[in-house]
């Protein structure tokens, strides 16, 4: 009897160990508290939803996914320590962080460990430093700005453009790409205005824009400054169409700028308002599970996990060292992997190319006006 019990216990232990060994371990470091708590919470919830779905359908290559979440406190220093701790546990893939500043200081650690890092940062420079292990879940400026420039040239028919940008890494990066692209397409930049982060008074900047009399104005500032310049543009009666990116037509900007935001257009890489059936389904599932509508960071977290699934299934094995090589140049079609939501191609630098959306603010609400095709 004793030997039967002992044998049963050993069998149970062996089975448990085997199941544990078979799980594919992911590590997530995100902004779960601090200034980026909204970003990190959406990202984490997107990850958890994807893992739940995948595991419910049998996992990846028959193995379940497991994830550990760590809080960067929206602080690059803490993010670095958390990533180091996460890498010590030898995860299959590192997920996060969402803030570009935190990605910048953690990317070398993941690269040194030879672990792929799928993150949410959007600063252009992140994937331009030659890091072969870093992957985006959304557009970097080098992907979004060509679309913006193309829209200004082709759709707005703007021969002359005023470009106003915030003088920091984010603004400078976007400005450099969009000016280059506008020049290539033949739209002339007639005013190139740098502004300061936190700037309150935009009267002079708007005065310059008025004096330049452009066919279109490209606005690339942080959210609050975007709201201020929108109000000033309206105050000074600038009627040229306004084009921007996510930071010009976000809900917070609309709230702050009020009527002045109406008519502003912008390019967004991901939005749960997109007229895409799979995104609509994602929005419904997410809202049902968490009782709120996610922002684009929820989509990013969800996509990160499906990038892991699609890449692993492409390899046919779980191999952390080969993961990055396989994901470079990979095209994942939504028809083959619905979790990826839209057809997507990853470049050799880890950047992303896929459809995106042209949004216009109509009566205080974002309205998707057009689906913009992949660049290549």
């Amino acid at each position, binding site marked *: 009897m004793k030997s039967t019990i002992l044998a049963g216990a050993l069998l149970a232990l062996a089975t448990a160990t085997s199941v544990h060994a078979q799980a594919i371990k992911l590590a997530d470091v995100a902004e779960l508290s601090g200034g980026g708590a909204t970003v990190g919470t959406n990202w984490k919830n997107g990850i958890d939803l994807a893992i739940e779905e995948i595991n419910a359908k049998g996992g990846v290559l028959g193995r379940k996914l497991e994830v550990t979440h760590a809080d960067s406190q929206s602080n690059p220093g803490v993010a670095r320590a958390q990533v180091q701790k996460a890498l010590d546990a030898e995860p299959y893939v590192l997920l996060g962080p969402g803030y570009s500043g935190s990605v910048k200081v953690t990317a070398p650690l993941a690269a040194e460990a030879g672990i792929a890092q799928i993150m949410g940062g959007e600063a252009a420079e992140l994937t331009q430093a030659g890091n072969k292990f870093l992957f985006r879940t959304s557009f970097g400026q080098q992907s979004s700005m060509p679309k913006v420039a193309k829209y200004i040239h082709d759709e707005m028919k703007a021969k002359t453009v005023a470009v106003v940008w915030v003088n920091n890494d984010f603004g400078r990066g976007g400005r450099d790409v969009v000016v280059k692209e506008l020049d290539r397409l033949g739209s002339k930049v007639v005013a190139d205005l740098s502004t300061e982060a936190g700037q309150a*008074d935009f*009267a002079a900047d708007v005065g310059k824009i008025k004096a330049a009399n452009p066919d279109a104005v490209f606005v690339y500032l942080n959210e609050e400054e975007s709201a201020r310049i929108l109000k*000033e543009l309206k105050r000074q009666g600038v009627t040229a169409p306004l084009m921007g990116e996510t930071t010009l037509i976000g809900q917070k900007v609309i709230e702050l700028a009020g009527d002045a935001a109406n008519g502003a257009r912008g390019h967004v890489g991901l939005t749960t308002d997109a007229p895409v059936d799979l995104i609509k389904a994602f929005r419904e599932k997410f809202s049902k599970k968490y009782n709120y509508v996610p922002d684009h960071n929820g989509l990013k977290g969800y996509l990160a996990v499906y990038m892991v699934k699609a890449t692993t299934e492409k390899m046919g094995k779980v191999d952390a060292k080969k993961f990055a090589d396989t994901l470079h140049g990979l095209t994942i079609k939504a028809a083959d992997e619905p979790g990826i939501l839209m057809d997507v191609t990853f470049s050799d630098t880890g950047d992303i190319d896929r459809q995106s959306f042209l949004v216009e603010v109509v009566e205080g609400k974002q309205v998707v006006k057009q689906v913009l095709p992949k660049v290549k």
Partner: protein
Amino acid sequence: MSNLFDLLVAGLATGAIYALVAVGFTLLWQTSQTINFAQGEFVMLPAFLMLAAMHAGAPFWLAIILGILLSMILLGLAFKLLLVDPMMRHGVLPLAIATMALAIGIKESVKQFFSAEASPFPSIVPTGDISILGHAVSLQSIGVLVVAIVAVFGLTALLNRTSLGHQMQAAAQNPTVARIIGVPVERMILLTFLINAFLVALASLLITPIYLAKFSSGEVLGQAAFIAAIVGGFNQVRGAIAGGLLIGVLDNLAAAYVSTQYRAAVPMIFLIAVILFRPQGLMGRAEERTV
């Protein structure tokens, strides 16, 4: 140069706000030798008091009245009785340091109780333009300019043409003699604090619709008004007005014709030049020191 007129109007409108705030610096300095380094935060807070009243269900006009009254109680009466009077015994420097601490306290409290994010704020002036000399000038700019000019002229008239104003000036110029001739000096000083609180509340009402309500918005405003007060003359109300308007216009012209990147440097360079060549300010009077 076609937009020079627009730049001048916008610069004067911003400058008028600086002037309102700068006048507060000079009033407090003249009557009580107080340099209030929380003056920028004094402009930021009334907007949040008005927002709080609106969130509680008050209509905008009532929120304005409540905001101004609360500002006069908190930033006038309480500021004088609870901070300036006790600290004044220790001299001007400890008092100045105390106002710096107050600035931090106000800023962090607003951040904690409201939000670190900016909030929209309704405007008392309607949006839209009117045509002046063939130029479309925004009603908001004109409204800000007119309200600020009326406030400043009202204050000047009060100081120069009324018995109360003369008593305030007497209390500021020589409190000992003023007491001898029967001027209630303490009451006059308190009145100065209340007037400053009224002016900052007015500035807050005018500027917040443009700058948005944010816990940190007093930093830039306080600095600009401080520069304006020094440039114009710290001991002259008319100097503070001139300094405010000058800095507002200079800032806008520098941004338009020099560089937006270096616009913040231009008023500072101007300030240094004024301190070097006319330390009492453009319209201030030199004060002799006896040793």
